[in-house]
């Protein structure tokens, strides 16, 4: 998993959401939000064009998530980028098809691992775990949290607040805002809350509107995908 990139900010423009660029040791890493590939691609090109001076001569790695890209599409992007004097050197993808395409075009498909800080001996009882962001405050209306990892909130998520997570979202408090787990298509993502009364829940590409009006009994609930549908059930330990 790539290092997580976390922002807490007020609502931003659609373009920001579609394309994120950050510096890594080997150059720049581009990640994408949701949307059609053609849209994301134009957003990336437009973004680079806007700041042509900054990007000139840059080396780009792009993480295309689940998009399935053929040689024509990747070739097109590489040409367009080189017109802007930007070189494409790596394509990271969850799709084997895209990986193969990238390899055919002579592009890298893996980022070098960051230098390990210490070499941990991993036995069967030692778990590595996954990256999560901890937010120890109430997210009020207008707050927005987006991250590629998981999210844990200790506090409330009020109506009008939004959380976008690549992984799962756990709210130790009342969830009354909007949460999208698995933004990059992770269907294993879940959403848990001590009290579940959201405006809307999304997991991967599914959307669920939770019935309002009658107050739900306040018990811990978990939302997850089952057969492509979001289901919400009381959380019970087994």
């Amino acid at each position, binding site marked *: 998993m790539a290092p997580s990139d976390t922002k807490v900010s007020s609502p931003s423009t659609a373009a920001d959401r579609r394309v994120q660029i950050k510096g890594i040791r080997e150059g720049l890493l581009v990640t994408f939000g949701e949307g059609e590939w053609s849209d994301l691609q134009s957003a990336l090109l437009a973004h680079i064009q806007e700041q042509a001076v900054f990007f000139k001569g840059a080396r780009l790695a792009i993480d295309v998530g689940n998009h399935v890209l053929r040689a024509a599409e990747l070739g097109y992007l590489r040409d367009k980028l080189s017109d802007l004097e930007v070189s494409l050197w790596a394509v990271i993808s969850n799709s084997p098809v895209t990986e193969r395409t990238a390899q055919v075009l002579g592009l890298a498909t893996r980022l070098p691992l960051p230098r390990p800080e210490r070499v941990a001996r991993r036995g069967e009882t030692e778990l590595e775990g996954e990256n999560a962001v901890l937010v120890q405050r*109430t997210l*009020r*209306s207008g*707050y927005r949290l987006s991250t590629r990892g998981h999210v844990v909130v200790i506090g*409330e998520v*009020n*109506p*009008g607040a939004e959380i976008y997570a690549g992984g799962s979202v756990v709210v130790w408090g009342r969830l009354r805002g909007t949460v999208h787990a698995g933004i990059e298509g992770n269907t294993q993502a879940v959403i848990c809350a001590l009290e579940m009364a959201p405006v809307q829940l999304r997991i991967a590409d599914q959307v669920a509107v939770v019935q309002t009006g009658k107050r739900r009994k306040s018990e811990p609930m978990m939302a997850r995908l089952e057969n492509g549908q979001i289901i919400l059930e009381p959380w019970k330990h087994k």
Partner: protein
Amino acid sequence: MVAKVVTVTSGKGGVGKTTTTANVAVALAALGQKVVCIDADIGLRNLDVVLGLENRIVYDLVDVVEGRCRLRQAMIRDKRLPELYLIPAAQTRDKNAVSPSDMSRLCDELRQEVDWILIDSPAGIERGFRNALAPADMVLVVTNPEVSAVRDADRIIGIVEAEEKGPVRLILNRVNPTLTRRGDMLNADDVLELLAVELIGIVPEDESVIISTNKGQPVALDGKSRAGLAFQNIARRLMGESVPFLNLDDGDGFLKRLTRLFRSGGSTG
């Protein structure tokens, strides 16, 4: 004397910011405090109308900021309460005529001379609101027991927290006990549970507010109005007094419990 700067704001328009500013100012002045109100709603001024001082405006806030008059000259003195002053907004300019640092400078100049500076913020979260927030030592968020007003109040509180202003105190305005009892209106419990800030006043819906607003006679001057009484209580709480909340006959809700809590402290109101 070092004044406390109190900004009255709400996010949503029409919830009673200006009425609250006028009445709390009047109530504080009636308690012998020296009070200056500043109307920060440039371009849409109306605090002067509510206070009944419209016909005495010569200079306004923008004149002060742009150096066309001295601060003293723009301070209109109330006839009823000699320790109450108003600095009106300009009607013909827009919010960009004043900056947050202008407001801070202006308040710093006033701080040594008065006890309270009350700033009436415009609706919204843009420049005008930022102007009003900049010098604040305390923020009074006014809301109504309606979902949309509460949502905006939450947004405002979030911004105030992010800017590290505050403390925030909540005024629940225009509460209708009959609707609340029937469950047709949010009750104070629901609002406080969501907003999680300290309550400083509950003001009942009261038609005398409309009448007095139109007359330019703030309702807090009227001893018989229930809304007027509620505003007087807010002023006393600002002064540090512990005053029980009005009993609005709210069934078994929050108010009744509070009333019960405070019953030993004497009659309500």
